[in-house]
């Protein structure tokens, strides 16, 4: 078998008749009359994949917490569990995992009945690199990254996510996309369809 390393130099006939030019021109004219493949951004928007690393959110207590980890952490820190509020157990593991720890401002409070809960959870997005270490570190599947990627704001203050906002993002996410499967597994038929539509020839994709 002959392996092709370089294009052969053009023959004299090809040079005189500009055959390489003509080949290129025929490719561009074919593309010019095909359908355009762009998204008209402010009017049409793509949904990012589920594992997209966008703005952060706090998942709220809704009965789908990872067990037994959640109950263990709640028992250890005597956390007051309220349905519809953040799952955060104030373990500070997110802050320890963060490469820029000062972007987290986390405080807990003690309630009159002796239980505790999170009171302050600020994340300064100006410092964040969206690496996702904090999400990996979270033992109770509370902190996560959503598909919100239009993050521009008019003031620096608006770039700080507080607890209320994080919970709101979390509720919205759980309503919209929590049950959606991750499209990363090789036996996922939907994923294969996505690759097929993109017309990519990957070795593991069978037509």
């Amino acid at each position, binding site marked *: 078998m002959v392996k092709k390393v370089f294009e052969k130099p053009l023959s004299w006939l090809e040079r005189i008749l500009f055959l390489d*030019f003509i080949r*290129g*021109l025929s*490719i*561009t004219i074919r593309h*010019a009359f095909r359908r*355009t493949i*762009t998204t008209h951004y402010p009017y049409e928007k793509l949904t990012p994949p589920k594992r997209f690393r966008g703005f952060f959110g706090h998942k709220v207590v809704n009965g789908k917490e990872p067990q037994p980890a959640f109950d263990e952490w709640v028992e250890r820190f005597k956390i007051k569990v309220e349905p519809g509020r953040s799952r955060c157990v104030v373990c500070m593991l997110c802050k320890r995992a963060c490469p820029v720890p000062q972007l987290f401002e986390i405080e807990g409070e003690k309630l009159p009945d002796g239980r505790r809960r999170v009171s302050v959870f600020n994340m300064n997005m100006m410092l964040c690199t969206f690496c996702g270490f904090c999400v990996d570190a979270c033992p109770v599947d509370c902190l996560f990254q959503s598909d919100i990627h239009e993050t521009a704001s008019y003031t620096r203050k608006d770039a700080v996510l507080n607890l209320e906002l994080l919970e709101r993002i979390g509720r919205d996410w759980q309503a919209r996309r929590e049950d959606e499967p991750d499209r990363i597994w090789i036996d996922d038929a939907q994923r294969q369809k996505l690759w097929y539509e993109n017309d990519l020839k990957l070795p593991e994709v069978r037509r």
Partner: protein
Amino acid sequence: MDSVLAWLIITVIKILVILGIVLGIGAYLTLVERKVAAHIQRRPGPMVVGWHGLLQPLADGLKLLTKEDLFPRYGNRFLYNLALVLALVPATLVFAVVPFGPEFETFGIKVKPILTDVNVGLLLVFAFGSMAVFAIALAGWASNSKYALIGSMRKAGIVVSYEVVITFAVMGPIILAGTLSTYEIVQKQIEQKLWYIWLQPIAFVVYMFAVLAEMGRVPFDIQEAEAELVTGFTVEYGGMKFGLFPLVEWYVEGLSLSAIAVVLFLGGWSPINIPFLGFIDPLFFLGPLSPFVWFALKVTLLFLFILWLHWTLPRYRIDQITSTAWKVMLPLTFVNLVLTAVIAPLIWR
């Protein structure tokens, strides 16, 4: 006295019509270029301002007019502004000798749709074309910027080499027609029932290469070279002054050189030609408007071809460009010249 007045009025009307058409179309060609480029890259191009972006050139012009007019420190203000005038005026003046159609009669007055039918029209065209070098060299020098200077020097090098080539390339059609007047050249092609491209294919190809070089189009856009030189000699210009350079260089000059190519090689306003037999006119139903439509159609197609080339080909190096001009193009035009001189008596009979 009366006839002088009529001549004056007609000339003023011609000037206004030509200026309006050239600058208006020049502005709208920016939209055409963006659309063609976008579709070749499978994008839709401007879509928001007006139907399919039809008002985009107006929006762009408005934006450029409201920009701050910056001037580089230690630059030369007189030359900086002179470069602008030197770029715009000769490029527009070329249209004075472009014939748009045959002579016609309205209100008992015979009107030639050409501003001045001088008997050295082609000489004027290439004289004006050479003046573009001064504009670019001055723009680069007066800006006091190394990018601008490098860009303008590259452009000057290219234009100097390709001026020689283009002059020898158009020698062929001139010999066949026996005249330098643009109007007469088209008339001769109609009388001889022959577009000169059939006898001068080499000259046509060489001419097209030279047009690309003079317009600063890819593959010869070395003076712009966005990746290396930002945008070459226009770096230090701002606002409408920045907008005028591409308008002149890419659109007005491109239109004028395409029009001259149509006049020299494609028979001006004549319909489709079968060599030595006659002309076939599929647009006969337009009556007296047909020649004007043919001329506009040919210029449009030629310009679109240049755009198509621009968005297909990669860029050559400066030494490759100049060595092509001196070592390949120039000898080819000499060969073409000799061949033309041999066969010319057959055409003249």
